């Protein structure tokens, strides 16, 4: 992540504040920053979403292409992730500088999202063993101010909700070969069920307490963080400890409980917002970056 220099005095000030339950911008330990989400911002994609969480800006585009299913699971489609840490976020990401972070982020995204519990991969199958839909999820990091995983996961959920996959018809031609026909009608499409798609909650340990949605400054003062992906039912699907410090088992348990609680409350307002946006349909004014 982009490095931020923190002086000892700032660190002490921050840690004392967290100990008393107040953060630098006045939030409590489990509050998120102001979040803005919008879907369908890029028209070349099958689904897209843009999220800004404080000063962290992420744009996700989903493109559906027809490919060959994996040999071990012939009746399922799959998702491919690519995270582009663009130089927009910080000059250190110029050229190949952002590759390391991008690879780390996409590996975790594979673990969290590319399994049949999160997304119904069977619905992506066209012809078992021969053709399936491959969803290329491209994440573009535009501005980085901490808490990348949370922002990316919420944006992915919104983008998958917005994804429209054209319906296919398989027809047999004379020699017995299969022909795939995509429906010409842009409204004749299949939507994905994103009910079970989890959201990632990152908790950073600062001193003896943990905070949700840490900024870069807070991250620089923390020893370690815990990444938890939680579904809307409160089920934990993936846990990972990150950072160079070590955590004792007590605090891991505490942080998991807090993460579950916070994660569960993320889903309902998100789905409500997405449904509302969808119901506006054509009348919705697309704002994107112009607002």
């Amino acid at each position, binding site marked *: 992540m982009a490095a931020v220099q923190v002086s000892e005095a700032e660190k002490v000030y921050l840690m004392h504040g967290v100990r008393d339950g107040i953060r630098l911008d006045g939030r409590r330990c489990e509050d998120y920053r102001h979040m803005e989400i919008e879907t369908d911002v890029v028209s070349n994609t099958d689904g897209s979403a843009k999220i800004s969480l404080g000063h962290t800006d992420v744009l996700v585009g989903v493109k559906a292409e027809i490919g060959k299913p994996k040999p071990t699971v012939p009746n399922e489609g799959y998702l491919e992730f690519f995270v582009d840490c663009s130089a927009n976020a910080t000059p250190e990401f110029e050229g190949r500088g952002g590759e390391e972070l991008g690879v780390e982020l996409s590996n975790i995204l594979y673990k969290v999202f590319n399994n049949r519990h999160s997304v119904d991969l069977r619905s992506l199958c066209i012809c078992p063993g021969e053709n399936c839909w491959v969803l290329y999820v491209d994440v*573009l990091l535009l501005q980085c101010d901490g808490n990348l995983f949370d922002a990316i996961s919420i944006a992915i959920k919104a983008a998958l909700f917005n994804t429209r996959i054209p319906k296919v018809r398989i027809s047999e031609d004379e020699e017995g070969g299969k022909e795939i026909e995509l429906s010409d009608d842009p409204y004749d499409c299949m939507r994905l069920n994103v009910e079970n798609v989890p959201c990632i909650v990152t908790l950073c340990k600062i001193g003896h307490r943990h905070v949700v949605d840490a900024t870069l400054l807070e991250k620089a003062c923390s020893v370690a963080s815990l990444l938890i992906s939680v579904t809307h039912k409160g089920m934990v699907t993936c846990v990972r400890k990150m950072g160079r410090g070590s955590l004792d088992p007590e605090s891991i348990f505490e942080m998991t409980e807090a993460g579950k609680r916070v994660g569960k409350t993320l889903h309902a307002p998100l789905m409500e917002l997405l449904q509302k946006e969808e119901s506006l349909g054509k009348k919705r004014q697309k704002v994107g970056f112009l607002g």
Partner: protein
Amino acid sequence: MAGLELLSDQGYRLDGRKAPELRKVQARMSVFAQADGSAYLEQGNTKALAVVYGPHETRGSRSKSLHDRAVINCQYSMATFSTAERKRRPHGDRKSSEMSLHLKQTFEAAVLTELYPRSQIDIYVKILQADGGNYSACVNAATLALVDAGIPMRDYVCACTAGFVEDTALADLCHAEESGGGTSLALALLPRSGNIALLQMDARLHQDHLSALMEAAMTACKGLSKVLDGVVRQHLEEVSVLTSE
């Protein structure tokens, strides 16, 4: 040519514009708070995002810094979902490197680099949606980003593409017109002096048509400069309202 006609008999293009008409341009400055300067520009369906960092100390090797002026470092990249066919690598391929060099050349002509010796100005441009005129959208967005960063320039840099079909010059080509096989010319202009910062043309063209094509591109650029000027003034009004007592 079977299929789509670039210019119909009534004088209308594929998207309904007349020959010298530009696409709708919308722009916004200061989209990102963390960068020194940033701007977002939409030219029809082409969307470009430009971010400027600097002037700051030369990163990396000291040998790259120049003793009498600033180094301008540009990177052009396209989002993987920006084109109809998914692009595998956002940058690093030949086309992106070529575009980065063009942008560098364009802005070295406009930015007053003599004011910042031994320093570096970074301009990063990202194409979010590509529908023809990628280079022009980048240049226009980068101009706004440089103005937002407060870096002194000689003039606005406005860029536009132009093409030639059946003795008529078309201004501001979209993707279908660019790949239609006709001529396409990209021009970057400093409007007040009328000086050209970059001129690039691909495909064959009779030399008698060259001046007509350049005229069309220059007129389009001058029109664009008025739009960009309007955007800058509006942004300044908004900012001064917020910061005034």
